[in-house]
């Protein structure tokens, strides 16, 4: 029996985000909210572990009330219970403040052997929440896992590093962050989707987690965002048009002048 907590972040589907060059804003209207890609792998891995060894999967998400949709999807994929951590006080959280809220929820759940999460979130790509949470909970961490094998309380994982696969051994309880490579997340069946609405979905606010206003959201953040602007790119955007017999030498010359290409 292994009880697993899968951490889930809901994000805007990154492929559908666009920039409105005129207003210099990120267009999120009409963009679907989805589970951040590697978090989906974390849910899948948690469910596979449960299917093999027995136990329970609890999906946990901090976010706006809409994040309930992401948790419902996790339940449809096979998670047994869900906890939505939502409170206006959480707004403006940085990685530290987020990890702090998740740690409080995990402490309240008590009964777990393994925390799984995605290595990064698709929107911010900061790589921070997993290791910070592990540190607060005083748990070992294994990151970039492309394969996990459990034997009793022993865990062996393959870490996908730049130029090597590193096979590491650790002990439960621990936190493992997974990559996209680890599995192919399932598409829930219609039955599973219908069944998900009957599974427990519990919402916890700051007060339920015994958290103080001062440590939450913007107040609790250790990093402040001073400015946030859409990046319209600092590229030259020189379009070469015309006959290929003219365009090709033109481009080659430009690249030689930039000093990035050498004539042999």
């Amino acid at each position, binding site marked *: 029996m292994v009880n697993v907590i899968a951490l889930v972040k809901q994000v805007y589907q990154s492929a559908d985000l666009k920039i409105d060059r005129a207003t210099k804003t990120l267009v999120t209207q009409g963009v679907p909210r989805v589970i951040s890609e590697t978090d989906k792998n974390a849910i899948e891995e948690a469910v596979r572990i449960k299917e093999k060894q027995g136990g329970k999967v609890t999906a946990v998400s901090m976010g706006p009330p809409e994040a309930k949709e992401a948790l419902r999807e996790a339940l449809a994929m096979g998670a047994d219970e869900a906890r939505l951590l939502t409170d206006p006080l959480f707004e403006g959280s940085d990685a530290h403040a987020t990890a702090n809220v998740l740690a409080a929820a995990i402490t309240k759940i008590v009964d777990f052997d393994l925390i799984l999460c995605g290595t990064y979130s698709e929107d911010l790509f900061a790589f921070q929440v*997993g290791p910070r949470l592990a540190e607060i909970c005083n748990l070992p961490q294994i990151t970039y896992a492309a394969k996990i094998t459990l034997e009793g309380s022993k865990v062996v994982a393959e870490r996908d590093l730049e130029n*090597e696969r590193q096979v590491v051994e650790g002990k439960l309880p621990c936190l493992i962050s997974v990559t996209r490579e680890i599995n192919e997340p399932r598409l829930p069946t219609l039955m599973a989707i219908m069944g998900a609405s009957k599974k427990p979905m519990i919402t916890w606010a700051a007060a339920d987690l015994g958290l103080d206003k001062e440590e939450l959201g913007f107040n609790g953040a250790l990093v402040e965002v001073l400015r946030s*602007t859409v990046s319209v790119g600092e590229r030259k955007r020189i379009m070469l048009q015309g006959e290929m017999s003219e365009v090709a*030498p033109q481009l080659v010359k430009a690249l030689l002048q930039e000093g990035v290409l050498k004539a042999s």
Partner: protein
Amino acid sequence: MSQENKGVWVFSELPALAFELLGKGRALADQLGTELAAVAVGANGDEYVQHGADKVFLMNDPALTTYQVDSYTDAIAALVNEHKPDVLLIGATRNGLEFAPRLAERLKTGCVTETTRLELDAEKKSVLMDRVAYGGNLAETHISRSKPQIATIAKGLFSPNPADSSRKGEIVKVEPKIKPPTTKVLETKPKTAKGVRLTDAPVIISFGRGVRKKEDMAVIEQFAQTVSGAIGCSRPIAEDLHWLPIEQYVGLSGQKVSPKLYFACGISGQIQHLTGIRSSRIIVAINNDPKAPIFEYSDYGVVGDLYQVIPALSNALKQLSKSQ
């Protein structure tokens, strides 16, 4: 917030990356009128001095020979608590990226990962740390409310200062107190990458779905040979079609590259891909769809069929080489 934090520190388990951090660190330390220190592992710290460090904290402990998150966090957190640096730059390797937030949490300080630019604010009190979110669509400037101010920096973003053997610096030997680590490495399996590693390649030719058949990769391979470039690809080529090993996929969860010259051939330019190529100096896009987003993120764009454009480029380069 404590006022006494002083000095700029750099750390990377990769010496080559640590030297790059020393390049940027030197500039920051000079502007702040403070000392630049490197935290290093091993028996010799001279190279760090030659690349700009005034001081090297040299940890010569067998437990630190290879990187392990617990041991490194224990050792460096203790050093930071003792000396209280103002700024700490950490190399953003994958290991560096799992280490920096864990260290920051232990120190209860902020950390900005994958920064693209660092600059001192007008009063020179804090470091303005730029990073991008949403695959490069949103540029954010962060400051840390606590110290040390920690930033992680990817390879290739800053240049090292040339080694100067006449530079003098202080080597401080450190004997860190390290608890037994919670994980141990059983084995390392090298990845089988053909030829040059993408992350080291000065010229990269990447292709995407615009290449219609596996056999047609020959067009790309030939061109790569002509310009002495390494071959990369978009995610579908490696993950869905398996035409190339996963190590050659450039993007968000794949390789992040920083070549002098990047060719995106038949790649539409999804956010996933753009994130991996941001640090390229010059980006050339070749695509038959004039509306492909990749053109917005390129220095030079050619609208056309890559099957025609690429051989034409090869020819043009050969002609030019002959005429010189």
